[in-house]
């Protein structure tokens, strides 16, 4: 476990991708196979089973520290991470009492095995482990217990390190470790074996991802080399039909077959041995609906009749990754597209749509089409090179997303809260308001878009200009104006303002504007009328 804690520290400290890559490679070179399996699982977003929840963990820690609950809260809001807060407030372990008793895999398997154990047993186990660990091991241990593990290393870096270590192409590794496998019952050899991968009917392919197009589209060369489609805002997904079984995966590699019962009908009609890449979109039979419609059902374990009627979905197919049981990804896009069209037309089912290919003779026409994106409910255009293969992950050159400019509005900062992760102990989470007559009405929260330096300046302002404190929230003198950008707007009865924004963030700090210059609630309502349908 010490070795894994050291790895996590190293990865957290390092700012250079090459450093992280080397650290992981070094780890793979010396770690036990069973530990490697867990590292692959954790760094590819496979959460370990949760043995106790974070609140419970905090209660046990407080029994040891005798800190008042409010003080623990205060610490938590300063640190911005519960597992770390607990690790820091626990009584220090004397150097002589520290041991490296168990391996990473032992802990993770024990967490799984003890899931149903009586609470007292869990507690005893955890307290015993805390007693022999230093703060950095406790942090990692707590993180693992509570099941969430994001530490600033991407799956891509882990895959590359593994690829270097076992000398296989990264794309092959990405595919082998995808899909449905349980780190508790899978060996390191199995994960990496071709036969094992082939025996799993549900196994998805790594998604091909696009970078944003910053340059002029004409820099991409001959317009005839490119295929353009609308860029849809739903859930990217894969539909797999193998051996008469149907599987639906999200881009986050979550198996979501049961959440979208609409697609079950495809099990009958899809030909055997196909994998489709596409977008899960709320669709009323004529046009895609806003993402907010989909949001009403994605969090739910069970999808009821109400959701099925109010937020029906279709699958807008982009690409064909497997055809007649064969990996089809190395074929050029033009051919994949042709076969995809044949399949969708033959299937001829209302839940399976083609993401249409847009026709244009030159870049200007596509530029013009892109301007109409919002009218069809899309976010812009996707440009794909016709002769390109289907890559694993993000790769520069063959796929580009060419999004429309976001909607914007000027608003004033009224509440602030301390951030998480590397924003620990800094006021970086803000609530914004627009004018409603001579009052202010809050309508959006945003956490991103400023530079570190700007965040430090705003933090300083918040500390000097807070009016009241409600728990972790400070009300701030309404003075700082920001231009907020967002991707969409929808009516909402959960928000006082009556609107919900899609992905709001700070586009720029308008130091040239005063609070009286901001937009009004009527401006928002007008936007809702124009874009909220």
């Amino acid at each position: 476990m010490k070795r894994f804690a050291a790895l996590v520290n190293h990865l957290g400290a390092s700012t250079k991708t090459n450093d992280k890559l080397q650290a992981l490679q070094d780890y793979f070179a010396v770690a036990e196979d069973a530990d490697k399996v867990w590292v692959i699982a954790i760094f590819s977003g496979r959460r370990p089973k949760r043995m106790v929840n974070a609140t419970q963990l905090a209660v046990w820690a407080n029994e040891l520290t005798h800190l008042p609950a409010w003080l623990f809260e205060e610490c938590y809001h300063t640190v911005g991470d519960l597992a770390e807060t607990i690790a820091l407030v626990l009584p220090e372990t004397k150097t002589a009492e520290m041991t490296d008793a168990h391996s990473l895999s032992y802990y993770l398997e024990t967490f799984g095995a003890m899931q149903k154990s009586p609470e007292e047993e869990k507690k005893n186990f955890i307290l015993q482990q805390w007693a022999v660990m230093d703060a950095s091991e406790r942090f990692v241990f707590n993180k693992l217990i509570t099941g969430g593990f994001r530490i600033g290393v991407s799956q891509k870096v882990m895959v590359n390190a593994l690829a270097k270590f076992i000398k296989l192409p990264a794309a092959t590794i990405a595919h082998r470790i995808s899909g449905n496998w349980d780190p508790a019952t899978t060996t390191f050899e199995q994960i990496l074996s071709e036969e094992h991968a082939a025996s799993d009917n549900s196994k998805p392919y790594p998604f091909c991802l696009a970078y944003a197009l910053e340059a002029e589209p004409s820099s991409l060369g001959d317009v005839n080399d490119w295929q353009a489609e609308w860029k849809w805002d739903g859930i990217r997904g894969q539909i797999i039909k193998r051996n008469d079984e149907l599987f639906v995966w999200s881009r986050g590699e979550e198996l979501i077959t049961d959440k979208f019962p609409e697609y079950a009908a495809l099990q009958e009609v899809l030909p055997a041995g196909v994998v489709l890449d596409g977008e899960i979109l709320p669709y009323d039979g004529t046009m895609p609906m806003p993402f907010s419609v989909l949001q009403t059902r994605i969090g739910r374990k069970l999808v009821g009749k109400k959701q099925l009627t109010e937020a029906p979905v279709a699958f807008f197919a982009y690409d064909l990754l497997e055809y007649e049981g064969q990996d089809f990804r190395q074929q050029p896009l033009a051919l994949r597209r042709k076969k995809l069209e044949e399949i969708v037309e033959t299937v001829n089912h209302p839940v399976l749509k083609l993401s249409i290919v847009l026709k244009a003779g030159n870049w200007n026409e596509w530029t013009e089409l892109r301007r109409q994106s919002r009218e069809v409910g899309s976010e812009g255009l996707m440009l794909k090179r016709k002769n390109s293969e289907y890559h694993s992950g993000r790769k520069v050159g063959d796929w580009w997303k060419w999004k429309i400019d976001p909607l914007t509005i000027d608003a004033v900062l009224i509440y602030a809260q301390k951030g998480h992760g590397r924003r620990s102990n800094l006021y970086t989470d803000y609530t914004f308001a627009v004018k409603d007559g001579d009052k202010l009405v809050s309508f959006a929260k945003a956490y991103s878009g400023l530079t570190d330096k700007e965040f430090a300046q705003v933090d300083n302002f918040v500390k000097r200009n807070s009016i009241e404190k409600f728990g972790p929230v400070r009300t701030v003198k309404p003075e700082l104006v920001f231009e907020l950008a967002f991707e969409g707007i929808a009516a909402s009865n959960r928000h006082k303002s009556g609107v919900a924004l899609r992905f709001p963030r700070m586009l720029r700090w308008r130091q040239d504007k005063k609070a009286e210059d901001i937009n009004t609630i009527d401006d928002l309502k007008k936007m809702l009328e124009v874009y909220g349908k």
Partner: protein
Amino acid sequence: MPLIEFTDKGFYCRPGDFYIDPWKPVNYAVITHAHSDHARWGSKGYLCHTKSKPMLQLRLGDNPYDTVEWNEPVYRNGVKISLHPAGHMIGSSQVRVEYKGEVWVASGDYKTEDDGISGAFEPVKCNVFITECTFGLPIYHWKPQVEIYKDIQEWIVDNQSNGKISVLIAYSYGKAQRVLTAAAEVAPVIYAHGAIYNAQEMLKNAGWNFPEVIRVTKETTKEELKNSVVIAPPSADGTPWMKRFQPHSTGLCSGWMQVRGNFRRNNVDAGFALSDHADWKGLLSAVKATGAEKVYTTHGFQSAFSRYLNENGIESAEVKTEFGIEEETEKEAPENMEAS
């Protein structure tokens, strides 16, 4: 009227007609220590510890400075003033004020562990204690200095074996002297940024005997810098000045490094939670040792610390000050900057 009032210029003792660490120019200022958020320009007269004077002269220019040793009382209008070691940096002192049998102590910044340089913190009995609480949350507890020094030394040795220059980021006054002491045990020569070099020169002239540092200049060659240790102030981090150190690893020495997120956003390779402030336990032990009936908390987590004291039977209230921004002011201080 309380013996010390909290005014918009700072802590004011009316019967003695003086301020302690005022943030605006006044007639007479008693200075706890030479950091720029506590020692400000423009007052007509100053009282400080003998060892603070050279630093104040460098920072604030030539002014009338009255100096005293620790535990050497002076009187103003019948008010007894004395300074007592605060352990924060060279010359740093708590200010004890006594009038008609009532005793107040203003802590300035302090740490309870003896760093071997600043003088050992002295608990002073008083009726009212004004304490800093920069690290006034129980998430802050420091490892003993010897252990942190060992961490720093191991890091340097590790860098040396990987052919890297170790760049240690530390404030010119206080942290730099500690880091220098630690690094000198494993590195034969130590290079310094102009700001650190100036501080060391000044201390040398004042009779201090720290390990020598060599100033990094345009003439300093790659060969000389190979595997070396360099000490630089926070203002140098991330500037083109750092580019000459290839390859290097950066280590930041600050109590804030205790928390991962803080460490990560500083984009350094290593963080050492080496602080010149008291940690949670240090603050609590200091407060208890004063025996004070009333404790005012300033700069830091003052509201949390104050509430905790109240709940534990020590009457307390928070006071708003303009202390605790030395990081920003140090970056702005022109005499600390080197041209390149």
